[in-house]
Every structure is written in structure tokens, then in C-alpha cells.
């Protein structure tokens, strides 16, 4: 498939085609088509949106009710060999409390047939060296998360699927893990990270797929997703010496839909951000006023996500 769609990448390692999954009467994922390639892709959505169901289908823990999923050209449900290339950090606490972190990662290494040195390398990657010989049962949530990530990294595969990997981590651990995932993505690995925490996805991923109610709501980079929301006006903050005259001129030009003035700050809403950017300098010049601020107010994932959820 070479559909020129933002949900599809040029060189996919994971292909999800027209996939649906239902549990009894409940539809968890509905006719979803997307792909993942090298680099970090964020899977964004509120709790219950279908992110975990999608990821579990990608790794073969769940079978699609309809559609197909392939990883590196193979169906993970029927080709356990694909797990030499594919690793997952599941959302649940998939750790053995009676093992130490080193034993846990070592167990993963033996089961994956990983080479010598892989255990120490994986432990070092998540900075768990100091606690590696302590029982996991005594670990904090964040440390357990890191142990799970180390176990997933141990086979050094090209595809890494992470379901809410930053849950329970403290800010320092989070920053470290985000840097690790970004580095893995930069090395050419396909890294898929799900999260309902928007700021995390924004920091983690170059590309974002937003899922709402089991459907793909938007795909692309943050700005592209925002541009896709053509029916939702952009909010831009402007600061001008003569705000009321500028407001009147903007409304007259038709390039903005509304303007709110508070002191020297104008908050304008427009469906045509490019048009506003183009027409604003000559307009200001013609009024003889000086612009000291042009700031799109809501180009964050938080606002995009709010729109996506609100629109349904």
C-alpha cells in the first residue's frame, strides 16, 4: 500500500490495515489503517481510546476481529520468530517479583536468545545498575518500568512497542527514558510509544497518531495534526501599540473570525493562519502601528487533543 496518507509512512515496519477489534458488543478499535516506520511515533489518546488494544494487536497478543497486522512482513500471531526483531513494554506490571532486576533482564535475554553482554548493556541503558541485584518486589513503580524497558531492549531489535512506558516514573527517570527512546528512534529503530499524557508524547515523538473512540482521529506531526483541524479556528496572540485600530482592520479584512482585546494584547481566531501571517505586516504598516508579538496560542498537543475529544 502506498496511500499518500499521513497515517501511512513510506517505509513501514509495522502495517495495520483496516483493523477492527471488538469484545462482545464493545468496539475497541474500528477500521483503523496506519503504519509505523523508523523513528519515534506517539500513539495518543485518552484512557479507553483503544491504544492498548491496537498495540496488543500489533505485537500479536490479540488477534484482530477484522483486518490484518504485520510486523516486518509477518503476522506476529503465527510467527514467534518475529519476536527476535520486536519487543514490547506492556502497560501491566509484567515482572517477576521474586527475581532481581538482573535476573529478570537475564531471563528475558535467555528467552530471546540474546548475545553476551546484552543484559549489562540493557541495564546500563535504563540506569538501573545500582539496583540491579535487588528484588523487583521492592522496586518502586518507576523502577519496575525501567526493568521492563531493559528487558525489552535486551534483544536489541529494530522494533520497540511501548505501552505507557513512563507511567509511575519520576521526572528525572522520565527525562532519561525519553532521551533513550529518542536515541533509539534516531538510530533507525521503529519506536511506538503510547501515552495519554500529551506533554510526554510531544516531547517523545516526531510523528503522532491520535486515537479517539477506537478510530484514528488525526495523524502527522503536531503542526500537521493542527492544520488538519481546518474547521477549528487557530488562536493567535498579538501585541500592538494600537490594538483597537488593528482589531477593527483585521475584522474588516475578513482574515480573522473574531478578535478579543485586553490591554495591548489581541487574541484573534482565524481558520487561515497562513493568510493572517501574510496580511498582518502590511496591515500594521498601513496603520502605522508596531507589532511586538505574534504567538499561535494553541499549537500544543494539549489543545489539539482537546479539540479532537470535544469534536466527538
Amino acid at each position, binding site marked *: 500500500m502506498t496511500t499518500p496518507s499521513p497515517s501511512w509512512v513510506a517505509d513501514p515496519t509495522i502495517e495495520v490495515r483496516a483493523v477492527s477489534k471488538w*469484545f462482545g458488543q464493545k468496539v475497541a478499535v474500528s477500521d483503523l489503517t496506519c503504519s509505523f516506520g523508523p523513528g519515534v511515533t506517539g500513539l495518543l489518546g485518552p484512557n479507553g481510546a483503544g491504544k492498548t488494544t491496537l498495540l*496488543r494487536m500489533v*505485537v*500479536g*497478543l*490479540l*488477534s484482530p476481529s477484522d483486518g490484518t497486522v504485520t510486523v516486518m512482513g509477518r503476522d506476529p*500471531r*503465527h510467527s*514467534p*520468530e*518475529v*519476536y*527476535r526483531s*520486536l*519487543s*514490547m513494554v*506492556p502497560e*501491566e*506490571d*509484567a*515482572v*517477576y517479583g*521474586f*527475581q532481581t532486576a538482573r535476573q529478570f533482564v537475564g*531471563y*528475558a535475554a*535467555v*528467552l*530471546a*536468545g540474546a548475545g553476551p553482554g546484552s543484559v549489562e548493556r540493557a541495564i546500563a541503558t535504563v540506569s538501573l545498575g545500582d539496583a540491579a541485584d535487588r528484588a523487583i518486589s521492592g522496586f518502586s513503580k518507576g523502577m519496575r518500568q525501567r526493568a521492563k524497558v531493559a*528487558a525489552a531492549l535486551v534483544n536489541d531489535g529494530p522494533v520497540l512497542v511501548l505501552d505507557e512506558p513512563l507511567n509511575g516514573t519520576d521526572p528525572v527517570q522520565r527525562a532519561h527514558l525519553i532521551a533513550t527512546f529518542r536515541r533509539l528512534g534516531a538510530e533507525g529503530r521503529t519506536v511506538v510509544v503510547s501515552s495519554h499524557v500529551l506533554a510526554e508524547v510531544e516531547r517523545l515523538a516526531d510523528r503522532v497518531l491520535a486515537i479517539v473512540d477506537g478510530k484514528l482521529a488525526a495523524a502527522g506531526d503536531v503542526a500537521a495534526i493542527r492544520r488538519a483541524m481546518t474547521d477549528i479556528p487557530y488562536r493567535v496572540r498579538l501585541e500592538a501599540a494600537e490594538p483597537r485600530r488593528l482589531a477593527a482592520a483585521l475584522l474588516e479584512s475578513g482574515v480573522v473570525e473574531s478578535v478579543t482585546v485586553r490591554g495591548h494584547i489581541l487574541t484573534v481566531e482565524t481558520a487561515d493562519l497562513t493568510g493572517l501571517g501574510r496580511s498582518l505586516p502590511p496591515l500594521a504598516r498601513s496603520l502605522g502601528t508596531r507589532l511586538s508579538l505574534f504567538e499561535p496560542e494553541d499549537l500544543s498537543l494539549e489543545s489539539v487533543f482537546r479539540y479532537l475529544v470535544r469534536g466527538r
Partner: protein
Amino acid sequence: MRAFLALLAATLRQLLGGRRIIPLALMGLLPAVVVVALLAQERTAVGAREVFHDAPVTIMFFIVLPVASLVFGAGALGDERRDGTLSFILLRPLPRSLLAAAKLLGAWLATLAVVGVGAACMSVVLGLRFSDWGTLGPLLLAVALSSLSYVSVFLVLGYLTQRAVLIGLVYAFIWESGMTTAVTSLATVSLMRIGLGAYAGLVPASRVYLTDILGAVQPGADGAVAKALVIAVLAVASVAGLLRYRDVA
């Protein structure tokens, strides 16, 4: 092979490492304690044999063996699913049959650690008291075969349902202890009697004491071994299929 051994070791540690091993180990020794108590009043070897094959064997095969097999058999995969670690082993490049076989072997060895030690203690008490060592090997084979059969069935059950222990108890005490004892012809499909049949085949003198329990089962070790192995292979194949096709929610 390394992966198989690692799975086996982790399964044994998982099953034998918890607190449940203490009551199970004590339960495993119960038949031996009963043998000690009963033999204290016996003066003859013939009487001792009769006593040995009465309450202690009954307690071992009707209570200890099914309960231990159920706990370990159902727990081998059931615990992994409950603890969320099933995905950890499934997301590895391993044949599903290897996972199933390692889990079955782990559960069987854990069960043997309880019932095998208990059975050995029973026979050792008889041997020390009356120099009758003829029951030791056959009894160990018998508990090995019955527990392999039970564990095979309970392994599948433990993966299929979270109510495996409840269903297993009903099976063990209503079907195995009740129905197959009450209806003689049903004894041939009893898992417990696979081991007892082998025991009766190897210790002919025991048949007189076990006739009622054996029902329609023909004593003999070869058939019993074959039966237990077939059940184990079917269980591995079933679990491998389930691991391959069943969703892990």
C-alpha cells in the same frame, strides 16, 4: 535448550517459592504421619501391608495428589496470566509447544516435590519398621503417573479459566473420588487410577487391598505409563494451540 531450562527454573521458583508451599508440604507428609501412627500398633508385616494400603494410600491418592496437582498445574500458566507476566513469556521467539512443555514439566516436578516426598516417606516408614521396601519404587511411579495426568489436565484448565481451582476441586472430589468410585466402569477414565493401576501391576500383593478402588482398571505399569504420556502430549498440544490462537487480554 537454554530457554527451556530457564523457563523450567522460573516456573519451579514461581510455584515453589510462595507461601503456599508450606501447607502443601505439610499436607504431602500427612499420609506418612498416618502410616507412622497406624504402624505403631501393628505387630505383623501382613497387617502392616493392609494398614499401609488402607488409609494412607487413600489419603495420598484421593486428597493430597489431586490438590497438589491442581494447585501447581492450574498455577503454572494461571499465575502468569493473573500476574500479567504471560505476555512476558509469549513475546519471545519460542515455539508455543516449548512454552507449554516447560510449564507442564515445571508443574509436574513441583507436584512431585510434594507428593513424591510424601510417598517416599510413607514407604520408608514401612521399610524401616518391617523391612518391606517393595512399595517404594512402585509407589513413586504411581504418584508420578497420576500427578502427570492430573497436572496435564489442570494446566489446560488453569489457562482456560480463572476458576480453575474451583472447577478442579469439583472434578477431583465429585468425579474422581465420587463418580468413578461409585460406578465401576467409569474407573477406566479416572486419572488417579492410572497411577494406582501401575502400582497394583508392580505390587501384586496390593491388589487385594485396592480392588474396590481400581474397579474396572486392569493393573499394569506399561499401559499406565502410555496413558499418562498420551495425556501429557495432548495437554502440551492443547496449550500450545491455545497460546497461539487465544487472545491475551
